[in-house]
């Protein structure tokens, strides 16, 4: 037979049933079979990998045209099927049964709309009925105000830290003696709080979006603290005051997202008004009228990073033209009652003016403050003569923007403004920027990168015939943005993503690498089941105290071996990113051999038993890592209540493979299963057989059974697939 005839057999695979979802979700084409008879009386068929394959069956027909029947004479192993050579000629074809669409979507949503699956959420969504399905979970998470948040019950540190936030009763810097209550939270507290919520929150999407906006409108707590040092604060107070700014900012975003019609403008405005941002990008010290040269930092990043995206509708002259508009936006210590009044005078309240030490420091709230004497009063024109490029197509090219009469022209003219009226310049700008097509495009791209995969970019030509699923999805997001009333609502945009075929199919599953935060939180969540169903503090089979992920005992990543897990894995200091681009979302921003080694060390540390007083082996040189705890054997006993199953290496392997890789399907995981069985049935060196079924069941620290199971779980979480979301 020649090759062209051979080509007859390389046709299109058969999809035997229709997709379960009515949104265009389809499975990829069938695998391609290759190979042929081997010399040693065996033959071996190789096939290309298939995403999330659950069951493989080899079918045989002899001759072609006869019924296909399953050929059970061979074995599957890592993309091959090997059998004794058949007597006579035959045709084979491979049948792939992919993971069901609800199971696939379950894995996708728990990893993307949340910080990873938990055993209980998997149990719930796998039911695929009523409120217990992946699709129902998307709807629920999309309306967080409808979810009762129980995170506070899951770990007492959440309430503890929250009691230290805020300024109401103890204004920054507060009495020097007070170390609890409002105003006393510091850098590590807010970091731990965010990590705790990532692990424990019921409103998972709310937490994912909290970190998204916090990271998009990035500010640097260290720079805020530096500002307070300049304001003569000492000891721990610069950090406390910096933390308070972050808390105020993130609280406003979180509140806004509980409203059904929250918009991008809401988020942008909160950021622009945040004292942390005003300080971070140097607006606080910028002055307008000559001979002063306004600082361009905020203007540049507002365009490049926060709204329209780099090189998307602006140039350097627009940055320069915008810089004077922001002059006067600064920060001031005002009376607590004036926290929301940008024109308030400096506080006059003194700490304990009559006390024995007679402190005369002023107290109050460091709030956004508009100082009109710093403001550049003249008229300004931004985007002069600039029109929306043709690539956006209608309605963007045919509608008018702001006060412009010409379609597509998005020039922004700001009149001369004096005194406190000057504050309006800034609001004019963010109002104008918030719904520009460039902003719609750039933010849609960022959200798609967050929820789908890294391969989205700005600059699509939306008017030509050639499209990709990525371009189509960005366009759908923009349509949802533009079509909402008021414009710019984020829930319709998110819904456009979550309902897309790209998101719901294989294109949205496991294409991304977890950030360090996502990785650590997901590792704990993967093993986190409630022992008695209450979910209260102390009943979890895996937990963190928050600080165990984020707390660095001073200094940088290399000092004294005490850096936090997130710092070790990728220099990720929450609320404290130095560069204005935020932590990366793309895989190459996180993955290198050194960071993988640190991920594996974190997993090893997490999975070690907590016992062993005085032992440093658990804590990986950082005592705070002692507070990341798992008990995988108890999890095993809970989920495999039959004693015979607890001795069964295959069932134990399947249990953890299912919990850790719920999106892969059994057939795709077959090779991992072999690795797991080999791990369970060898001793600690991996060189000598030591049957798992022979070990005495125990979760006592140091017992052979406990060690073996802990080692297995750590090993599985150290494999490539656990890094994905």
């Amino acid at each position, binding site marked *: 037979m020649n090759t062209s005839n051979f080509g007859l*057999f390389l046709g299109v*695979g*058969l999809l*035997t049933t229709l997709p379960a979802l009515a949104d265009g979700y389809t499975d*990829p084409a069938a695998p*391609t079979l*290759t190979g*042929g*008879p081997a010399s040693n009386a065996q033959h071996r*068929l190789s096939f290309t*990998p*298939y*995403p999330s394959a659950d069951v493989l069956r080899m*079918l045989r027909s002899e001759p072609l045209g006869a019924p296909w029947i399953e050929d059970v004479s061979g074995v599957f192993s*890592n993309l091959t099927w090997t059998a004794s050579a*058949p007597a006579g000629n*035959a*045709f*084979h*074809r491979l*049948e*792939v*049964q992919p993971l069901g669409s609800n199971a696939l979507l379950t894995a996708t949503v728990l990893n993307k709309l949340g910080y990873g699956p938990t055993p209980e959420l998997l149990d719930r969504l796998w039911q695929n009925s009523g409120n217990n399905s992946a699709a129902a979970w998307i709807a629920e998470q999309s309306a967080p105000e409808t979810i009762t948040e129980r995170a506070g019950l899951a770990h007492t540190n959440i309430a503890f830290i929250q009691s230290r936030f805020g300024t109401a009763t103890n204004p920054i810097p507060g009495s020097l003696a007070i170390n609890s209550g409002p105003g006393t939270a510091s850098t590590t507290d807010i970091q731990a709080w965010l990590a705790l919520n990532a692990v424990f929150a019921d409103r998972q999407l709310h937490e994912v979006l909290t970190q998204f906006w916090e990271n998009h409108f990035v500010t640097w707590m260290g720079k805020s603290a530096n500002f307070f040092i300049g304001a003569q604060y000492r000891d721990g107070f610069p950090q406390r005051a910096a933390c308070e700014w972050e808390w105020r900012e993130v609280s406003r975003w979180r509140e806004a997202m509980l409203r059904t019609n929250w918009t991008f403008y809401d988020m942008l405005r909160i950021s622009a008004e945040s004292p942390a941002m005003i300080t971070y990008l140097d607006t606080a010290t910028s002055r307008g009228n000559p001979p002063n040269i306004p600082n361009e930092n905020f203007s540049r990043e507002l365009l490049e990073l926060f709204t329209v995206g780099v090189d998307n509708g602006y140039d350097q002259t627009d940055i320069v033209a915008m810089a004077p508009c922001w002059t006067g936006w600064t920060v001031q210590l005002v009376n607590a009652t004036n926290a929301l009044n940008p024109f308030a005078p400096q506080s006059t309240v003194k700490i304990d003016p009559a006390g024995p030490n007679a402190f005369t420091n002023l107290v109050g709230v460091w709030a956004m403050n508009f100082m009109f004497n710093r403001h550049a009063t003249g008229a300004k024109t931004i985007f002069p003569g600039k029109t929306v490029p043709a690539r956006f197509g209608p309605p963007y090219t045919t509608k008018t923007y702001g006060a412009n009469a010409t379609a597509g022209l998005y020039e922004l003219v700001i009149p001369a403004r004096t005194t406190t009226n000057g504050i309006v310049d800034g609001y004019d700008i963010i109002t104008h920027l918030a719904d520009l097509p460039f902003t719609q495009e750039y933010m849609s791209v960022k959200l798609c990168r967050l929820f789908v*995969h*890294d391969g989205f970019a700005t600059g699509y030509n939306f008017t030509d015939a050639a499209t990709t699923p990525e371009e189509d999805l960005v366009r759908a997001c923009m349509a949802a943005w533009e079509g909402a009333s008021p414009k710019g609502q984020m829930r319709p945009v998110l819904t456009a993503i979550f309902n897309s075929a790209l998101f719901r199919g*294989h294109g949205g599953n496991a294409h991304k690498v977890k950030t360090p935060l996502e990785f650590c939180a997901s590792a704990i969540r993967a093993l986190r089941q409630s022992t008695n169903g209450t979910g209260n503090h102390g009943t979890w089979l895996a937990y963190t105290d928050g600080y165990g992920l984020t707390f660095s005992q001073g200094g940088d*990543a290399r000092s004294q071996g005490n850096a936090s897990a997130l710092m*070790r894995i*990728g*220099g990720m200091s929450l609320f404290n990113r130095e560069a204005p*681009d935020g932590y990366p979302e793309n895989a*190459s921003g996180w*993955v*290198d*051999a*050194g*960071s*993988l080694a640190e991920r*594996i*060390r974190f997993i*090893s*540390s997490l999975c070690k*038993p907590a016992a062993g007083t005085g032992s440093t082996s658990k804590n*990986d040189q950082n005592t705070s890592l002692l507070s990341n705890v798992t008990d995988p054997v108890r999890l095993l006993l809970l989920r495999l209540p039959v004693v015979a199953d607890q001795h069964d290496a295959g069932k134990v392997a399947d249990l953890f493979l299912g919990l850790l890789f719920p999106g*892969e399907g059994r057939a795709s995981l077959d090779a*991992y299963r072999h*690795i797991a069985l*080999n*791990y369970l049935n*060898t001793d*600690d*060196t991996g060189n000598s057989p030591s049957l798992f079924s022979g070990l005495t069941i125990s979760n006592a620290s140091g017992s052979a059974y406990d060690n073996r199971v*802990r*080692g297995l779980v*750590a*090993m599985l979480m*150290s*494999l*490539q697939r656990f890094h*994905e979301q």
Partner: protein
Amino acid sequence: MKTNLSSPFPTHSLPCINTITRRDFLARTLRGGAALGLAALTQVPPFARRALAENNLGRNGKKLLFIFLRGANDALNSCIPILDPSYNNTNRPNLFIPPDAATNYATAGACDFPTASGNQFSYANAIRLGNGFSALHPSLRFLAPVYNAGDLAMVHRVGYPRQSRSHFDSQAYWETGEPNSVVREGVFYRTLLESGLYATNPLAGISIASSLPTSLQGSQLAVTNLSDPTRYDLLGTPSPTADQKLMNSILAGNNVGFADKRSRGLLTLQHENLVNTLNLFSTIHFDEADNTFTDPATGFYLFPTTGMKNGLGTAATNVVDNGAYGFFQGLKAAALILNKTDAVIAGVEMSGFDTHNNQGGVTGDHADLQKRIAWAIYALRQYFSGSEADKVAWNNLCVVTLTEFGRTTIQNSNNGTDHAEAGLMWVAGGGVKGYSGPENAYVKGTNGVRRSGLIAGAPGDTIPWVTGGSGSMFGVAGRYLSRAVDYRSVLGEIIREHLDATPTQVSNIIPGYATEPELGAQMMANNSSVDGTPIMGEVDVV
């Protein structure tokens, strides 16, 4: 039940026609620890084709160590134009480094190496460089022996057209080799890519930093970054004895065929890289206990990683401030890796140069940072010149510093300096063309002519340093040094001359290198085509 069927495959006696899958292609091409990028698997990657071509880039036994000074170093207080009347107490009331009344800075000759008395930095004046015009900050004292040996070139007034004064942009431009571009692909990454070394060497490049810097980032090959090499092993669960078992499982996991997804190529690549480099590094002694290298001249420890190893551990012998130990742990690791493996490019970084507030003068924050630079260069020379030299010796090593821009000529109201334009690069190594001896030492000329170790920093230079109130110190906007050299010319020359890249390769690594006059493979280019600024082209330092 949803199922999906493959096409029928005949299993009777047929010749096997082997369809090469993308994964197979890589497996066949790159076995043996090859760490090649899988980002674009749909075609034969161009770098793989290039790797097959004969080329010397990275194969001539020479190596590169770069140090990124993050935050922007104040060049004017590093290599000081001490005889420029505008370098004075008025412009820099708190930062001014006073000249030594007993020293004639116009004298040509070797660089002064002031004697230490009481402590290593007791000399509190500008150190005469010996080019008849310039001086070193006193905290750079340990550069003097390197300079006088001709192993140090300092390139002043380095920048690029349309200079960005944003840290974020400008660091990126320095690291990508493409000013004013949004490309995020590193210049040293492209060097490694162009060399094709990754086809045979699992560790052609290494970075010691909190995360992989942009200069070594790219999608087609994986560069290893270590935040702490002493931690570069697997912890093992339940105990370190299970390390090997875990490692073997990871290795087995790397070979499992899964359906291709967007990040899987990168994950596989870096996991293979992990397994390969773990084994490689297990032979290198990164531990503190093995840090016993000392300077034959002084007896001081070369890598001050603890208080006890700072000089001889006494205040009188301290060569750096006590905040420097983390940096020197990283530097030591980079030096060991270059010396003990086939790595060709290593990078480290030092932060803290963004001295807006209380920068300090003879002493203070900036002085402390400069002590680290000087001792680093001094120590590397001693380490690679002695018997420790293994895979590379000082003569074959080039050390180069990068920093995103210089700082304002006039100090600000916070006793510091703000973002400005042109800055300073240090280039050191046994093969560097530095100071060539006392005769005419201040003349910067063409090949073969005696020369100083400072380029573009004095009035006698090709592009003269103009003194006074409207001179070089105020060349841009009345506030900043304007550039006389493009950083790409310095990096390009190092890549071309030191690492032996062909002109085509340099142009692939630094776009426009062959065509843009201001980069100039030729010496003494001319005026910048962009803004008319006089530009030197390559400056002949290696």
